[in-house]
């Protein structure tokens, strides 16, 4: 039978084979075609670098207060971005603040992603009353403003890094649940699912082995976009005095502390603000690029 195949089909196959690249190579060659994606990726890499190696690259101890050197403007006495009202170096504190933002962004996305995915899969795959109950729950929560909800939860369970992650995750899982549910709804009607049921695979195996792997792409895209939201939300909550507590440097509570000096010493709020903007921008640019790159493949196949 092999000889009955047209030559073209074989030739095409070998061309495809030779064009195959490694996953990582493919990733970078895709990335190099989009300057926004590169920018986003660069910012994320910088953030990761700062959050891991922060303590070794800060020019000053970010916690060290020196009252005689309070409120120095940028570029004086070797303080690149000036000092705050307690004389702490703002540049060092911003570098250390990156760690908080990164931890909160990633940890929240992981927790919210896992909870939301599980709920979304259950609702989307089993349908029926459990779908109705879960989705109404999601509806109720979505009708609350995200920040207010997170604030309330945070007020109940108390401040601190761990608690803010928990409250952000409680506020954030609903979006994952919604998106994953709709993905599952679309997937379960796909012919390859029917066809693997027809080969005798059980429903649970279908779920774990066929539906879940197809959800990785939407989960990764959504998580990358949500991380930006969580970082901003954390900054807002810390700014309001909940969340990460001083003296731990976080961009949000730096804004909060600088609020009183906003008219006299502008650098106290400006630089942490810029750090937040750049971070959110970088994460969103990268997330957008990721969506654009992965989505057509997902739909095309």
């Amino acid at each position, binding site marked *: *039978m*092999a000889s*009955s*195949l047209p030559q073209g*089909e*074989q030739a*095409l*196959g070998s061309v*495809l*084979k030779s064009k195959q690249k490694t996953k990582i190579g493919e990733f970078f060659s895709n990335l190099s075609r989009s300057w926004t994606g590169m920018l986003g990726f660069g910012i994320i890499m910088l953030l990761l670098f700062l959050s891991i190696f922060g303590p070794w690259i800060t020019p000053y101890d970010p916690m060290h207060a020196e009252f005689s050197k309070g409120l120095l403007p940028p570029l004086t006495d070797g303080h690149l971005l000036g000092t705050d009202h307690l004389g702490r170096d703002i540049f060092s504190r911003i570098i250390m603040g990156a760690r908080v933002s990164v931890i909160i962004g990633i940890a929240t996305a992981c927790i919210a992603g896992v909870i939301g995915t599980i709920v979304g899969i259950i609702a989307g795959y089993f*349908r*029926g009353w459990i779908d109705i109950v879960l989705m109404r729950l999601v509806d109720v929560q979505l009708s609350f403003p995200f920040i207010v909800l997170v604030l309330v939860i945070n007020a109940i369970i108390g401040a601190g890094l761990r608690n803010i992650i928990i409250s952000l995750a409680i506020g954030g899982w609903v979006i994952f649940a919604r998106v994953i549910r709709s993905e599952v709804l679309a997937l379960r009607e*796909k*012919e*390859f699912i*029917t*066809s*693997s*049921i*027809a*080969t*005798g*695979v*059980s*429903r649970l195996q279908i779920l774990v082995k*066929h539906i879940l*792997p*197809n959800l*990785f792409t939407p989960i990764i895209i959504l998580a990358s976009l949500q991380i930006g939201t969580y970082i901003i939300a954390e900054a807002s909550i810390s700014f309001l005095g909940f969340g990460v507590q001083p003296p731990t440097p976080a961009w949000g509570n730096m804004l909060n502390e600088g609020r009183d000096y906003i008219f006299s010493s502008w650098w106290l709020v400006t630089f942490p603000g810029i750090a937040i903007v750049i971070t959110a921008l970088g994460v969103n640019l990268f997330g957008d690029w990721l969506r654009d790159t992965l989505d057509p493949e*997902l739909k*095309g*196949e």
Partner: protein
Amino acid sequence: MSDAILKIKNLKIEFKSGKETVQPIRGVNFELKKGETLGVVGESGSGKSVTSLAIMGLLPERTSKIVDGEINFKGNDITNLKEKQYRKIRGNEISMIFQEPMTSLNPVFTIGQQLSEPLRQHRNMSKKEIEKAVINVLNQVGIPRAEQIINEYPHQLSGGMRQRVMISLALLCEPDLMIADEPTTALDVTIQAQILELMKNIKQENDMSLLLITHDLGVVAEMCDRVVVMYAGEIVEVAEINELFNEPLHPYTRGLIDSMPTQNTRKERLYSIRGQVPRPNEITKGCVFANRCPLAFSKCFEETPPVFARDDHLSKCWLQNTKEGEVV
């Protein structure tokens, strides 16, 4: 008739949508002998696919129900099997090829991973044995470089190749019955011919029975030993292949044959049966085809015709009433 591998007796299926219930399958009877290729033809909406899904036990549980009748596979009624028992049959003793090769393979797994699934499910084999069996079956369906193909993803294959993969997936556990639901509809004509030829050979080599569901009478003429013509959830004619084409008894079958394009005449307008298949909820008394039938007379609108038999040639039309005795 003890050699029948599949017997469907008076099958009735009901669909629920909201408060309404409709019966897309109303009393279907046919049997498939061992080693036979049986074609099921009919327009869209005639119930071909629903029948095939019912045999596989793949009807959506929530919205559909087999209300009457029996699907007898190798002497056992399988309509009331538990999910777990059904899984032992699916892919193992009955397997199915779907219409759309482009979407029938999971995009995130390699061909090899997907093909090893039925074997892991139904056979107790080591990894090496599985790989060997998969390569073997891929060779059987005429896929070159099978050793490489098993490491490739579905999107790297063409439509014809993917359908070959689907056929090999259905073949893996050497089933007794293979159901092919419009296996060539999504393929272009040259590939169609290859795939049909392949299925024919494989059926003979493996001594399987084949239930071929299609709307293409050309495919039927090429492949089948006998044909079941379905219309609006009923079987209107059953005949041996040559007899069906030489002497169709039911006006619907005649209409289907007349609406096939022929190679030689181009000038004429192609014949078409007017109107469309009535929806299950539109069916009233009388013959289901009466409102579209060019030969319908008053009785057709009043009474449902019984099945008339002329030897093995069955048809459900009042026109046969005068000649032969009726068999209900």
